[in-house]
């Protein structure tokens, strides 16, 4: 960082202040009649959720035992985020469009207002209009609305369905793997999720199968005062391969809403899972009013020579608390984490990853890019652990922060625990600014300031964007551009 930045900060801030009132494009509310539980949480609420879903007894028992654990746990406060205490009794734990009650069998039976919602968000669910090669599971508040391309996937033996359906149709798989990567007691929000999760996606890729298309889930919170607790479980059997995308938005509301998801990935021997997220929950307004609290637990386990790759572009939410992690259990397994986290306005993000090296010659790569604008705060928190048996393990971590203006903050908290002398850990970190000089160069060549910032930021994120599937990379670039709109005058 250079000295002249203090001065530069002044001009940039002026420009930022001018136009921080950008529009959140996904902020509309759908006019859908819903059945919503009264706010409040106790065992009877959990029983009702389980009932609504028509779950078997074992699932309810599992939920209740998690709930009892949760009651004993304390809300974590170690993350560098600051928000008023959440009143868990003020949240409604279930909301579903009424039209979904009779389980529409095909798209023709789905409420057109729901289809319109997704279309407006750029995710047409009518197969003819869809992006070829991407199957979508659309989750609206607490239920899955529709899952597309299921027939085609079934031909390949791939199971892609709402988890509520998998619990009934594939109980042996769900029973075996749910909670196997993220145990019920793992953390406060994970335990809560186990108790009250409503829907999410389930994926199973059979042995030796390359999933014929990209799978994606699109989460939408619509109802007010409702928490979304989705749960995703992906199992890639030996030698299989799958690429999965996740997107999220919510209407613009003055109250904060809670989103506490759990994602579990299981990569068996030689399997590969690529999990990409574009998170654009409503971030709240420029004064920090409203927005989603995004407390997410994502973890994957890699067996021998398996590979899990997390790529995330995080631009939304008022508060984000999220550490997609890899347990590298099998020898020669590989974990990757590529992240872009953008905060603006009053947003706060504490995000990073954990790479737990257990097997021999395990490898992990972490590339984390944080961009902070306005009065926001972004933190990278990463743990790399080399267990005693992790002979020849390697990690490479690179954390870069980019500041726009002088009222924002970027923080890096790398934790390293090496219990094996043969393990190699490398860490690089940089902090830079969108400098006055770079802005001037761009503008001197005729670019307007917004184009200039988005180009500079996109350049900064290049290493991460190239990991995203093509359609998503373009979308992520655009999303950044929209998110930065108004970050400069």
């Amino acid at each position, binding site marked *: 960082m250079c000295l002249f930045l203090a001065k530069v900060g002044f001009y940039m801030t002026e420009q930022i202040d001018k136009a921080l009132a950008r529009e959140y494009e996904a902020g509309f509310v759908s006019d859908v009649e819903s059945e919503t539980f009264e706010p409040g949480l106790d065992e009877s609420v959990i029983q009702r959720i389980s009932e609504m879903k028509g779950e078997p007894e074992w699932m309810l028992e599992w939920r209740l035992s998690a709930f009892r654990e949760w009651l004993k746990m304390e809300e974590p406060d170690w993350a560098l985020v600051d928000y008023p205490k959440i009143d868990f009794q003020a949240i409604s734990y279930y909301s579903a469009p009424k039209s979904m009650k009779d389980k529409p069998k095909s798209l023709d039976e789905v409420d057109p207002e729901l289809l319109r919602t997704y279309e407006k968000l750029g995710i047409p669910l009518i197969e003819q209009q869809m992006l070829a090669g991407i199957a979508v599971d659309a989750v609206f508040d607490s239920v899955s609305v529709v899952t597309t391309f299921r027939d085609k996937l079934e031909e390949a033996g791939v199971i892609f369905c709402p988890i509520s359906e998998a619990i009934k149709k594939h109980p042996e798989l769900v029973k075996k793997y749910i909670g196997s990567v993220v145990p019920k007691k793992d953390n406060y929000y994970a335990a809560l999720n186990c108790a009250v999760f409503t829907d999410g996606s389930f994926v199973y890729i059979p042995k030796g199968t390359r999933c014929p298309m990209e799978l994606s889930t699109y989460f939408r919170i619509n109802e007010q005062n409702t928490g979304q607790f989705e749960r995703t479980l992906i199992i890639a059997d030996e030698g299989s391969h799958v690429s999965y995308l996740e997107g999220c938005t919510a209407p613009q509301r003055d109250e904060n809403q809670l989103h506490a998801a759990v994602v579990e990935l299981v990569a068996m021997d030689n399997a590969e899972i690529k999990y990409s997220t574009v998170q654009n929950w409503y971030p709240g307004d420029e004064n920090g009013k409203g927005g989603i609290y995004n407390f997410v637990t994502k973890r994957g386990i890699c067996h021998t020579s398996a590979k899990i790759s997390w790529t995330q572009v995080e631009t939304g939410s008022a508060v984000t608390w999220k550490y997609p992690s890899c347990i590298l259990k099998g020898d020669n397994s590989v974990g990757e984490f590529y992240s872009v986290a953008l905060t603006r306005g009053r947003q706060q993000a504490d995000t990073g990853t954990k790479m737990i090296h257990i097997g021999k010659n395990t490898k992990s790569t972490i590339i984390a890019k944080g961009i902070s604008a306005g009065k926001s705060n972004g933190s990278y928190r990463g743990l790399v652990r080399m267990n005693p048996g992790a002979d020849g393990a390697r990690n490479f971590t690179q954390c870069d922060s980019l500041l726009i203006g002088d009222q924002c903050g970027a923080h890096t908290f790398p934790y390293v625990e090496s219990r094996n002398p043969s393990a190699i850990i490398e860490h690089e970190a940089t902090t830079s600014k969108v400098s006055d000089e*770079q802005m*001037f160069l761009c*503008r*001197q*060549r*005729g*670019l307007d300031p917004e184009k200039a910032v988005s180009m500079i930021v996109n*350049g900064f994120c290049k290493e991460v964007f190239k990991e995203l599937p093509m359609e998503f990379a373009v979308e992520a670039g655009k999303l950044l551009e929209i998110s930065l709109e108004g970050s400069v005058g």
Partner: protein
Amino acid sequence: MSNTKSLLTIEDLYASVEEKQILKGLSLDIKPGEVHAIMGPNGAGKSTLGYVLSGRDGYAVDDGSVTLNGEDLFEMETEERARAGLFLAFQYPVEIPGVSNLEFLKASVDAQREARGEDAITSADFLKEAKAACKQVNLPISFLKRGVNEGFSGGEKKRNELMQMLLLKPQLCILDETDSGLDIDALQVVAEGVNSQRSADRSFIVVTHYQRLLDYIKPDFVHVLSDGKIVKSGDASLAHELEAQGYAWLQKEPAEDELEG
């Protein structure tokens, strides 16, 4: 010649940075097609002049006026001045990591085309032009894919500035010490770049410390900028005088008299 309309007219310009007065009554008139060299000691305000003309944040205009093609320059935003044909080749080009030269240049060219009401250039056409420009400034084609100035050597950065000029085809080119730190071959590349672009309606302000560049470029006028104003103007031969005698003799004398003569 004196009847021709001016491209750039600077009248009695005062400008400051951080409340420090740098330009102190600078006047200069440039007609289409002319090449003006500006020489002068370090800290005289040469780069400041380029920044004030192109509209860099933090450079305050305190007094005086500047018109470009008759339009008040100070009414225009930085990017509007660029789109009106003003180009500055930076003394110290900055890096933009991860943004490829090609992407940056195409976006720049398109922004300027859009301002003129033209469609964006097709990628194929642009690539052709960009390759030709690369070749002209003696940079390998691979530089188009690299990040803007990212890890370029000093000389490569300067040539990259020149390449941008070739692609943007500005009306007024301000080259701020583009020849500094270059070897003789690179110097010739710069000179040829400028000479190839000389035309009846394009003008240049060439800031340099070295008369050797002017041997190749052959300016119409040479000015000496000292302590924020032009203290002497003359033809190309002035550069030789300065080379032999330095600037000290100019600073000591009352500038007014010299200018009359």
